[in-house]
């Protein structure tokens, strides 16, 4: 189609109106490990696979789900190192907001500022887009919220979403299972079942990560033993 002739430069549109580099970034996301998020009536849960390259890797040293502020957490699909840069920038932006207003940053504002950073890297010279999509889960005065941010810098609020390898199956599963009045515990179960759908091998507390935030407005990453409890309930 001639598109490939425009894939050398991020800052050049192809004739079909696309920025081919962003498409490639989305492909990088699509081949990353599955992660998903579900917004319940009284909280949000985010979860991801944690497949390590070898059994020799110390799984306690790997943390894919990160805290941005006490009431906002994030998980990614795609390139881990890129997500670390974004987490660092987002944390700084959240703290700058607090220093100015002495008020915790609302989830929508933090998502917008993170998305702005990602967009800047699609319109600058000498840089490439981030190879991650983020799922941001938070609880503030507007209630529980779940946002997905893409490498292009666009962001959407979701009731439930998935990203990564198994995205289409996971989304179909979520569409069937999602109800508006779901409680947080039900959402965690549904998240585990969704991960199980496309999981290669045996799911265990050592190869998935789950983060929750409830009415207490405190984002918590579940310990392996807490994950184990949920897994038992699901079996």
């Amino acid at each position, binding site marked *: 189609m001639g598109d490939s002739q425009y894939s050398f430069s991020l800052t050049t549109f192809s004739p079909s109106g696309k920025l081919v580099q962003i498409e490639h970034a989305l492909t990088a996301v699509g081949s990353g490990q599955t992660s998903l998020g579900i917004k319940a009536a009284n909280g949000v849960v985010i979860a991801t696979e944690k497949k390590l390259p070898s059994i020799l890797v110390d799984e306690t040293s790997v943390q894919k789900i990160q805290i941005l502020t006490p009431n906002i957490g994030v998980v990614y699909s795609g390139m881990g190192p890129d997500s670390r840069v974004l987490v660092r920038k987002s944390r700084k932006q959240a703290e700058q907001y607090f*220093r*100015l*207003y*002495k*008020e915790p940053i*609302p989830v*929508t*504002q933090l998502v*917008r500022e993170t998305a702005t950073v990602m967009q800047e890297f699609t319109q600058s010279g000498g840089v490439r887009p981030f190879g991650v999509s983020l799922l941001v889960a938070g609880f503030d005065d507007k209630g529980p919220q779940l946002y997905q941010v893409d490498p292009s810098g666009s962001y959407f609020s979701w009731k439930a979403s998935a990203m990564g390898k198994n995205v289409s199956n996971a989304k179909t599963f979520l569409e069937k299972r999602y109800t508006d009045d779901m409680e947080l515990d039900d959402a965690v179960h549904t998240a585990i079942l969704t991960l199980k759908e496309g999981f290669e091998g045996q799911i265990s507390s050592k190869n998935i990560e789950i983060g929750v935030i409830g009415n207490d407005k405190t984002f918590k990453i579940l310990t392996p033993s807490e994950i184990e409890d949920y897994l038992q309930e699901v079996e």
Partner: protein
Amino acid sequence: MSIFEYNGSALVAMVGKNCFAIASDRRLGVQLQTVATDFQRIYKIHDKLFIGLSGLATDSQTLYQRLVFRHKLYQLREERDMKPETFASLVSAILYEKRFGPYFCQPVIAGLGDEDKPFICTMDSIGAKELAKDFVVAGTASESLYGACESMFKPDMEAEELFETISQALLSSVDRDCLSGWGGHVYLVTPTEVTEKILKGRMD
């Protein structure tokens, strides 16, 4: 003569029962000469948030313009009004930015916060916040105002009584100060309405 006494000003804010009142004098002077008798020192940020700026008139006008700018952007981005506590933190940060070349203003901030709880505070010209539960004062007549408020104030006054009290405190204090006066301007704010009244005192 101190730069804070160049134009002359008097400001006071008081807390009542689910309401607050903020009042100022109306004189604008250039040292001993009176130049205006209808000068506005109290500005509305939104229906439940007012700021009074005492001190050098040019700085108080410029500072007000900067604050309104910041608040408008905040309203557009966050789709909500700023809480008084948040606004006070913002004013404090903006004043401290100019730590070594400050605005010669002393702000008095008054507003209704969450669940319409009255909030008042003042700060010095470089942003040191002073929260109070009863009243705050600023301006060249501040010492008289402290005395008048301390003796006239009662907690949990209703709107009518609060208006009387703050008006009496203001008028009696500015009469003892040659640089402020020429009447008063009082805003009485309850969760449902804002009342603005002009006071006629000793016109000197």
